C-alpha cells in the first residue's frame, strides 16, 4: 500500500530525501501534463515541473496539513506556469477570445456534431494522433484561465472545491469557467475538424 502524501511530507520535513523522491515520482507526470497544457511547450513544461518541485521543497515548512498536498502542488505549478507565460511577454498570446453567447449556442446546438465526429467510442477517438494534435492546438488558443481550469480538471479530476482552492476563485466561478473552457475547445475542434454546424435540433422527444 503506497504511503499517503501527508506521511511523505512529514518525512521530507524531517530530512528524508527518499520521501521527497517518492513525491516527485508520484506527481511528476501529472504536473508535467498540467504544465504542458498551460505553457504549450515541452521544454518549458519540464522547466516548470522542476521549478514547481523546488518551490515545494523550499516551502514545505509552510504547507498546512489541513489542505491536500496535491492541490497545494498544483497551485504552485499553476503560478509557475503563469510566471513563465508572463515572462514570455505575450509572445504566444494567440488565445482566442470568445463571445460568451457563442459558447451557449455551441452547447445547445453543436456539441453533438463534435461527439459523432470523434466517434462513438471516445477511447478510440483519443488514440487518433490527428485528434490529439487538434486538441493541443485548441488548448493553445483558449485563454490562459480556461486552459488552466480545463487541464486541472481533466488531468487529475480535481473537484470544484479543489479547483477553487488551486485557482483561488469562488466555487461558483469554477462551474461557469469550466463550461466555457469546454465549449471553446469544442468550437475550435468543430472548425478544425471541418464539422458543419447543424441547425437547431428538431428531434426533441
Amino acid at each position, binding site marked *: 500500500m503506497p504511503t499517503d502524501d501527508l506521511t511523505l511530507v512529514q518525512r521530507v520535513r524531517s530530512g528524508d530525501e527518499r520521501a521527497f523522491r517518492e513525491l*516527485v*515520482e508520484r506527481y511528476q507526470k501529472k504536473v*508535467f501534463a498540467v504544465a504542458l497544457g498551460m505553457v504549450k511547450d515541452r521544454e518549458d513544461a*519540464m522547466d516548470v*515541473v522542476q521549478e514547481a518541485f523546488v518551490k515545494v521543497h523550499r516551502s514545505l515548512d509552510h504547507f498546512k496539513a489541513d489542505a491536500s498536498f496535491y492541490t497545494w502542488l498544483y497551485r504552485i505549478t499553476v503560478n509557475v506556469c503563469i510566471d513563465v507565460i508572463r515572462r514570455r511577454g505575450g509572445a504566444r498570446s494567440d488565445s482566442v477570445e470568445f463571445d460568451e453567447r457563442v459558447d451557449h449556442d455551441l452547447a445547445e446546438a453543436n456539441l453533438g456534431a463534435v*461527439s459523432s465526429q470523434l466517434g462513438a467510442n471516445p477511447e478510440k477517438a483519443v488514440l487518433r494522433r490527428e485528434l490529439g494534435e487538434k486538441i493541443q492546438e485548441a488548448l493553445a488558443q483558449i485563454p490562459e484561465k480556461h486552459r488552466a481550469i480545463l487541464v486541472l480538471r*481533466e488531468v487529475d479530476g480535481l473537484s470544484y472545491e479543489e479547483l477553487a482552492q488551486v485557482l483561488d476563485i469562488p466555487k461558483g466561478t469554477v462551474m461557469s469557467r469550466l*463550461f466555457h473552457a469546454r465549449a471553446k475547445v469544442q468550437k475550435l475542434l468543430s472548425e478544425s475538424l471541418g464539422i458543419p454546424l447543424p441547425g437547431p435540433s428538431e428531434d*426533441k422527444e
Partner: protein
Amino acid sequence: MAVTPTPELLSAYLDGELTPADREAVERALASDARLRRSLESLRTVSLAVGRTVLAEADRADFSGLADRVLARVPRSPTFLERLRSRWIPVGGLLVAAAAAAVFFLRPPPPEVAPVPSGVTVQSATADGPPEVQPVVMKTESGDAIIWLVEHPDASSGHPPASLQADKPGVQAPLPSQERPKKGEL
C-alpha cells in the same frame, strides 16, 4: 415537461458536482431531450480527449534525473546523525565544560603535608671582623658547654678572632680566618 438545464448545469452534471435536486432536474431533461443527450456526450468526449491527450504527451516525457536536479537546487537536508550532532554538540560542549569546572572546584583538598623539620646543622661560623663580644665557655660536669658572650673590652682593637672549639655536634669551630680586609678597604 422538463425544463432544459443551462449548459453550465450540464457541464457540472458531467463532473458530478450538482446538488441532488439539480441532478434530478438534469436527468429528467435528459430523458426527454435527445439533443441534450448528444450535447452531454459531446462534452464527455471532449473532456476525456483533453485529459488523455495531455496525459499521453506527458507519457513521452523523460523524467529521469528530475528528482536529482530538484534536490541539487535545494539546501541539502542534514542526515539524522548530522542533526543529532549539530543539536547535541553545543549541549555536550557545555556539559564537558561544566564537568571540568566541577572537577576543578569540587576536587578534594590536597592531603596535608607533614612539616619538614626546620632544624639545621651548622657546619661553620666565621666572625666578620674582630669580635665585639667574646664567648666564655663554661663546661659542666656532664660535659655540656655553656657559652656566655661577654663584650670584648678591645672590640675595636683589631684582635684576631678567637677560635671556637666545638664541644657538641652541631657546634663547630670557625674555619681559620682568611685574610681579612683591612679597615678602610671596604
